[in-house]
């Protein structure tokens, strides 16, 4: 009896989690005009999606933004993590806690303050302002991922490299960076996904000249749910599954 209860409870939880996603995937192949009836299999919504030039443009914009934001924040984040790990300097503790503040503060606060800053400095809202904003909220995640890896790092390895004749720079390139590579990639992937599905900050600091996917979907849904969104959702689902598998594969490979 007890077992039956716990089993069905578990089933219910999983149903709640996955049925909506399943419905979305199934209905992306629906030939009917509305989402309430089944009209047979078809790829028409995928055609419609790729025929929608504004939509495709938003998709590319989003991908490009996520790619550049993840890359820039990884570069800055790795250097920050190395500095925090290797050197003792004035204000180190402050810098460390500031990273956490960015991570913990409500997104809306970050969004408003960034908007105020951009307006004050006179940065035009568009790709550049979005990039700056996305780098800002991705950065702490990269730093913390890399720092976690560095904390388990054998301090003798850099010394061994120096001892064998490597300069500080060569040592960093040949020993330190390879050692933190998995964390670096994980941080990059984290940044990429965070950037790709961000709505709140992007709503504030985005401009009309550079439309990104989440905002585009949001505005589409407001007008009325089009089956195109289902197709888009399915594509995004496949993409994130692929990214998830990629990150797992990197992790497993690094542990060997």
């Amino acid at each position, binding site marked *: 009896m007890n077992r039956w209860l716990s089993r069905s409870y578990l089933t219910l939880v999983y149903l709640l989690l996955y049925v909506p996603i399943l419905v979305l995937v199934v209905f992306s192949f629906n030939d009917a005009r509305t989402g309430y009836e089944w009209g047979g299999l078809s790829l028409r919504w995928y055609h419609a999606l790729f025929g929608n030039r504004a939509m495709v443009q938003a998709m590319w914009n989003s991908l490009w933004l996520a790619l550049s934001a993840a890359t820039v924040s990884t570069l800055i984040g790795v250097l920050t993590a190395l500095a925090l790990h290797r050197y003792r300097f004035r204000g180190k503790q402050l810098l460390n806690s500031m990273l956490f503040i960015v991570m913990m503060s409500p997104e809306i606060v970050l969004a408003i303050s960034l908007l105020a800053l951009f307006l004050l400095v006179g940065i035009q809202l568009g790709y550049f302002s979005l990039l700056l904003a996305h780098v800002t909220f991705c950065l702490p995640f990269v730093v913390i991922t890399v720092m976690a890896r560095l904390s388990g790092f054998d301090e*003798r390895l850099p*010394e*061994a490299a*120096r*001892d*064998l*004749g*490597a300069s500080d720079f*060569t040592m960093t390139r040949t020993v330190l960076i*390879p050692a933190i590579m998995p964390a670096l990639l994980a941080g990059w992937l984290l940044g990429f996904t965070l950037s790709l599905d961000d709505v709140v900050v992007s709503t504030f600091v985005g401009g009309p000249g550079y439309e990104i996917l989440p905002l585009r979907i949001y505005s589409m849904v407001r007008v009325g749910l089009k089956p195109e969104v289902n197709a888009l959702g399915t594509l995004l689902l496949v993409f994130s599954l692929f990214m998830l598998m990629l990150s797992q594969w990197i992790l497993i490979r690094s542990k060997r």
Partner: protein
Amino acid sequence: MLQTLLSLDNVSKAFDGKPVLAALDLDICDGEFLTLLGPSGCGKTTLLRIMAGFEQPDTGSLTLAGEDLTRLPPERRPLNTVFQNYALFPHMSVYDNVAYGLKMEKRPREEIHKRVMEVLEMVQLQNFARRKPHQLSGGQQQRVAIARAVVKRPRLLLLDEPLSALDYKLRRTMQGELKRLQRELGITFVFVTHDQEEALSMSDRVVVLRDGEIQQLGTPREVYERPANLFTARFVGETNFFPGRITSVEAARLRVDVMGLERTLQLPRFEVSEGESVNVLLRPEDIRVLGPDDPQGLPGKVIERNYKGSTLDSVIELADGTQVLASEFFDEDDPAFDYNLGEPVRVSWVDGWEWLLPEESVAAAPGDVDEDG
């Protein structure tokens, strides 16, 4: 002895105001096997790290064959280190680990290949070149670490407790291996350990360190048989201390009252005068255990006996509670050679085998001995 290779002059170091090394002078000879021996926290690892260049001394200088090393970064010093936990690069194969140092020197590929394979053969790992460090056993990793350091043909090899992570048997094998390598390569070895047995069996000379100061510098035999002070005597090997009082000083000998026993001893190296207290040191193997009716010796009873295969180690408690450690070889001709617990015996030694040390005000026991120095 030989030419001086590395010379440390007035080297001192403090961490956060706490002195670790105090104005230390040390000359290391070319081609010797020198061991830095001491309990953990005695400064031996810091001293090694200063030689390698990972730490800067607060005062003093290092000179290697006439060249001042003091301000040189580690990558420009002609010496290499074998680290305690090997510090092999986990993402590189054995071959790449060993080749790393030569690549840094920008040697041609063929030369690198030849030298790497040579040195791998020397440590009997030529078939493991493609393996990653985590696919090797502890002893094999150890040998890779040594190969990686010696492939650069350093003037001096620094070894930081390289055997402490190995089990006893492998440790003994590696001790022999290291000695062989040192003979074949002719490289000067500076070896850090807290294991006095290892220090005695491997070294040409031993430096006994305590609280950043050199207690004694000498051959293993000197350090064991003629310890400079109570600390060295206690730290290197087992020692029995008997309190003695000088009753008279003669031209070449000395009359000492050892716990009521009148003995004639040789004059020690330090100044002595009548009525002074001295410490009479005897190693367990110098102790003779006699029958209870023997006129010589101090009376006591056996409270512990340990059969060790080639020797019989026993602990004898004297009348005043002092415990004496005795280690005797089996006498094939004496079938009765054994004791029962509680058996009354007398403890003595052969005149001339004792070693005298002046009374020290504070004779602190050596610090805890654990894995990290």
